[in-house]
């Protein structure tokens, strides 16, 4: 177990290092006009050269890279080109918003997806199964941004017109400022991100559970006289969840896309919206900082997923 963890962490560090290399190479290849943008249209070549020098963009790439790695190891990710504030501060402001959306949505979609999947699998071909399947396919076909727009239209706009002012049009309220307002601002973004994924998880859980419930050890458990509930939840679900956990590990990276779009629809300045702005402005330090954070998150999530296997399925051995 310890050896496994050490190896996975080393592998993860390798991936992170690799990503920083790729990011730097990309910016070197891509034409940069940051100095031009900052200097304005009337900037003389001297001004632009000076800006480049102050930003350290005139140094050779390997030097920029080495100083970035050195600073990053000390927890310094550089400064936002445009706002002149540390990237760590930019991330610290945006991260709670994105985490609020992502964690809440992930909990909702796992609960909906796994519950629906298990219900479908225990009563295959029933009316309930068909209904849940239609539900799954409908939301699976739904683009995230369209769902967000429809939720805004029906649950914010139409309800407000009808005099029921529950949901705001968008924006973010910190949990520490007002837990109630935070919740109200988060519900629509949560549903937006969660329903599309919940659909995929319903199908995944259903398939996996149907397979597991046909196995010999399930028959053994039944013939021991265990209650059906215990057979399904204790014996079946435990190994039936393995593919779900795998998918969840993969989706941590995929979650980024859903969150970007959702932040855009609900005007929340989280990591997604910040990175979209940073990319269009070629604000390198911010992009690299957020990408690095994302990579670390994916690497950590994957290690956690591998550990989770061992707990869920006793047949899995980590080595």
């Amino acid at each position, binding site marked *: 177990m310890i050896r496994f963890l050490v190896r996975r962490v080393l592998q993860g560090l390798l991936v992170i290092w690799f990503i920083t290399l790729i990011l730097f190479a990309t910016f070197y290849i891509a034409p940069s006009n940051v100095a031009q943008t900052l200097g304005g249209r009337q900037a003389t070549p001297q001004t632009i050269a000076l800006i480049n020098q102050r930003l350290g963009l005139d140094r050779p790439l390997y030097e920029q890279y080495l100083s970035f790695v050195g600073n990053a190891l000390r927890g310094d990710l550089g400064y936002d080109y445009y706002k002149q504030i540390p990237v760590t501060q930019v991330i610290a402001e945006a991260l709670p918003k994105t985490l609020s959306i992502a964690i809440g949505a992930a909990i909702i979609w796992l609960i909906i997806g796994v519950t629906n999947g298990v219900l479908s699998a225990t009563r295959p071909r029933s009316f309930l199964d068909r209904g849940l399947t239609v539900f799954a396919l409908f939301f699976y076909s739904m683009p995230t941004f*369209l769902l967000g727009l429809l939720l805004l239209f029906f649950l914010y706009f139409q309800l407000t017109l009808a005099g029921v002012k529950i949901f705001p049009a968008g924006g973010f309220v910190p949990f520490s400022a007002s837990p109630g307002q935070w919740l109200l601002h988060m519900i629509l973004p949560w549903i937006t991100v969660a329903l599309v994924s919940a659909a995929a998880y319903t199908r995944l859980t259903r398939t996996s559970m149907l397979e597991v419930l046909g196995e010999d050890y399930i028959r053994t458990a039944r013939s021991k006289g265990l209650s059906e509930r215990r057979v399904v939840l204790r014996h079946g679900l435990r190994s039936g969840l393995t593919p779900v956990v795998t998918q969840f590990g993969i989706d941590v990276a995929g979650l980024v*896309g859903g969150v970007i779009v959702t932040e855009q629809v609900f005007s929340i300045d989280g990591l997604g919206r910040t990175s979209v702005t940073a*990319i269009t402005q*070629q604000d390198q330090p911010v992009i690299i900082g957020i990408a690095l954070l994302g990579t670390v998150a994916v690497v950590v999530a994957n290690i956690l997923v591998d550990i989770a296997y061992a707990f869920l399925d006793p047949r899995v051995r980590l080595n």
Partner: protein
Amino acid sequence: MTTDLAKHDPAAPEPIVPDALELEGESRIEGRTPLQLAWAKLRRDKVAMVSLVVIAIIIILALAAPLVASLVGHGPDDQYRQAGLTPAGLPKPPTGQFIMGTDDLGRDLFVRIIYGSRISLLVGVLSTLIAVAVGVVIGIVAGYFGGIVDTVLARLIDTVLSIPFLLAAIAIVSISGPSLTVTVIVIAFFSWSSVARIVRGQVLSIREREYVEAARSLGASDRRIMFVDILPNVLAPVIVYTTLLIPISIVSEATLSFLGLGVPPPTATWGGMLDGSLNYYRVAYWYLLFPGLALLITTLAFNLFGDGVRDAFDPRSDRLFATESETEDEKK
């Protein structure tokens, strides 16, 4: 591959008779390729067939868009600042003149939605075909040669799969500038890897089969073995994945256009219209609802059809809408 399917349309001289499948005699079904069997099964799938009809209607409307525009009398980019906007300058609700209302520039939404289907289908199908072609070639090469070639290609596939699509797409588009071509290439670039992974997995087991060994001992070249002997045997999962990839690509295009990074205006795209509706849905529900419905119906039809295709190729697959008779078959 689609041409093979199309060959067996019901009007063909040698139609697939569904009854033949229910006969016990093996001799009757002898000689039918897996493609023919799958098509026969697909034809009995009501949901898939209805979806296919819906897809056909969308394709016909897309092809006939100029005709629709001339019948209605409004071009897709024509701005009717007088007739198409309220005195306050806001979009007009559906009327006899504009059956789905107008947008914020006084353009006919109905005509624009019809034109938008051209972009959705074009990007969806084109990027899928590119992705499948690249994915199949890389998957076969990786699986067939194995060794260092496989290691390198498999790593490449895993790397591309782990990149968050939307973030990378935004980065690429911000460098290159948005255009139709860039949209197709970006979507294809992030889609080939899953095709390659599926094909590679299949080829890994197929290359050990006797017929591949036989071809090799007869002196067939690597290229011939890969594309003449192996390729036809991986077609089934490739066809299934192709039909499921089209709606994903359509959603990707709409999402990019919604973010202003797909096909640039004034070209009518569903994603672009929905982006525009974000500022007007409070006063113009039709601006949000009709393009949204068009997008949803299209992706739903492709997904339902793709689900049917998957089932047609794999009798054990997770079935969505089995008809009762098929349910009985599965119980046996």
